[in-house]
């Protein structure tokens, strides 16, 4: 079997980019939260699953198409994230990393078990956009193409927002130096609430898209969160573009390794890449050259 068949490689790369776009969306949100408040939100994957279950419930009982659920879930999770930040996360923002990890870990446990209580551990999915379309010699699954497009759109939109809008600049200011931002008259506390809500909304979008691709249950969070952490470090902690490229990179690397070696090695790639980056360039692909 000639593995150097360009169509084979091309197919793998396409699959990897599609998967990577989804990873990027998740990781960018997580990264943004870290950047702004130095909090690692372990519950990020559970936010994503809330989005997935929202899509499931809306589809199953109200026959709402996932493309509509995306908006609903995003708004819902923005609200949830905002409130969680205001009442819980804000308390640990200026404390040690361990404290915030404990809090978000606790949040993830509560969310996961609430999910298990309500939905049980059955695997669900939203059977929309099944099947694939053909582009030349390549096969592109519909659900993954949709997920990639939506993820890209949202990530690019958020990036532009951070770059160009006043509010976005305020967010970046807080992430760079919260005290100076405060001196400039920025309401740092509100910015944090907003950012957390936005990240949760991004996770929700990822979750809704995911519901069409994979089967999920309340305890599938850990499968994704570890990849997100790896991407964050690989891309450079706190760096939005870094997380984006890191996500795409991981997707492609996983696909290529899965194709040339085995799927098991592909699973290990997130950790191997993580170690590699830490050894070669500890601040990440796009991280600052000097440590802060």
């Amino acid at each position: 079997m000639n593995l150097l068949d360009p169509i084979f490689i091309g197919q793998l790369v396409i699959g990897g980019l599609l998967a990577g776009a989804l990873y990027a969306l998740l990781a960018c949100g997580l990264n943004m939260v870290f950047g702004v408040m130095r909090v690692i939100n372990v519950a990020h994957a559970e936010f994503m699953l809330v989005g997935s279950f929202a899509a499931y419930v809306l589809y199953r009982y109200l026959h709402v198409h996932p493309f509509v659920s995306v908006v609903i879930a995003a708004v819902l999770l923005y609200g949830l994230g905002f409130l969680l930040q205001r009442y819980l996360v804000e308390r640990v923002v200026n404390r040690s990393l361990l404290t915030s990890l404990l809090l978000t870990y606790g949040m993830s446990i509560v969310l996961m078990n609430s999910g298990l209580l309500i939905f049980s551990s059955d695997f669900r999915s939203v059977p929309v956009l099944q099947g694939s379309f053909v582009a030349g010699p390549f096969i592109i699954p519909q659900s993954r193409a949709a997920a990639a497009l939506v993820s890209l759109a949202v990530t690019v939109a958020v990036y532009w927002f951070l770059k160009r809008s006043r509010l976005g600049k305020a967010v970046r200011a807080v992430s760079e130096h919260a005290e100076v931002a405060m001196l400039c008259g920025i309401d740092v506390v509100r910015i944090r609430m907003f950012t957390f809500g936005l990240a949760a909304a991004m996770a929700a979008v990822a979750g809704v898209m995911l519901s069409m691709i994979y089967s999920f249950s309340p305890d599938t969070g850990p499968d994704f969160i570890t990849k997100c952490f790896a991407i964050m470090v690989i891309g450079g902690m706190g760096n939005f573009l870094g997380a984006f490229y890191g996500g795409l990179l991981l997707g492609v690397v996983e696909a290529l390794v899965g194709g040339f070696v085995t799927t098991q090695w592909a699973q290990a790639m997130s950790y191997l890449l993580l170690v590699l980056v830490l050894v070669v360039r500890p601040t990440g692909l796009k991280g600052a050259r000097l440590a802060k």
Partner: protein
Amino acid sequence: MKRAFLIAVLSVVAWLGIGIASAAPPLKVGASVALTGKYSRTGQEQLNGIKMWVQDVNARGGILGRKVDLVYYDDESKPDTGAKLYEKLITDDKVDLLLGPYSSGVTLAASTVAEKHGFPMVSSGASSTKIWSRGYKNVFGLYTPGTTYMNQILHFAKSKGLKTVALIYADTAFPRNVAKGVKVTAKKLGLKIVFEEEYGKATTDFAAMIQKMRRLKPDVVIGGSYLPDSTAFIRQAKENRLYAKIFAFAVGPGLPDFGKNLGSDAEDVMGNTQWEPTLNIPGAKDFATRYKEKYGHEPGYHAAGGYGAGQVLEAAVKKAGSINHAALRRALLHLNTVTIFGRYKVDKTGMQIGKPGYTVQWQGGERYVVLPKDVAVKPVVYPFKPWSGR
């Protein structure tokens, strides 16, 4: 005189009180169950079956005149958690009887703990022959061994003149055992395994694997799997347009969820089953009806296995006349009985030899027994309907 009378009355009352309190304390039956993690769906089914048995046996007055009390914990589908829990059940909760967990992986670990304490354990939910090849004396299985799971399907493939097989399996005890059996049988039948890959238990993305398989155009695709991975694989096989004349998976197709989650994509997928409600086993239909009433869906074989394990335990304790470990062990070794799950008869290692396995196929949104021919409810639909025609 009055004081003596008072003492007499008090001692009678006390004696009566102690008598009532010690009249038949409940029999504690311990088990760990996968309530979370990859095996949670099947673990829950098994637990449902066990709970139904506990209810039924208590309605009959219990075992040896004692009510049965079920003590169970969540082993999270993890072998090391299971081992810790069985240690706790034996030494801390001091259970009287043991039932095994779900999955060969967790059972391998749990049975080591049981063996260490010389505590006999009745296991449904595990089929890997590795469990019974360690010289242990305390594990007694209900499931037909995993190495036989795909035999009927492979024989069927051979009868249709098929030649090549793509084999995938998860990296845990049971799937590896199924794969081992597939390799042995395929070799015997002259079928060539053109693709073989092991995947991690947590894998959700099979796209790369499917790409590789497509290039090889296998006649048969066989998976040593559980429910989440077999579901994901079929869905992604459709997305990536992988076609084969036979698709067969372990565990997944035996559950109602498979058809529910995949809809028309489950059509024509074959799988193994240890038990079906339509089989001509005394009590099976009644169990299925009552299970559906109680839990709202049809039982899969994992639930029946849980119930059957309870029945075996009950029969063995009755046969031994006590819960003494040595007596119970002997009883379980020599017991030959029929439960709603089928016949229970083990060889000298405790492995099940009295019960056959069966093959199911999804047709028209329902699961039917298609092999062996003499118990088939419907004939096999062959070949697999192309994806584009669904």
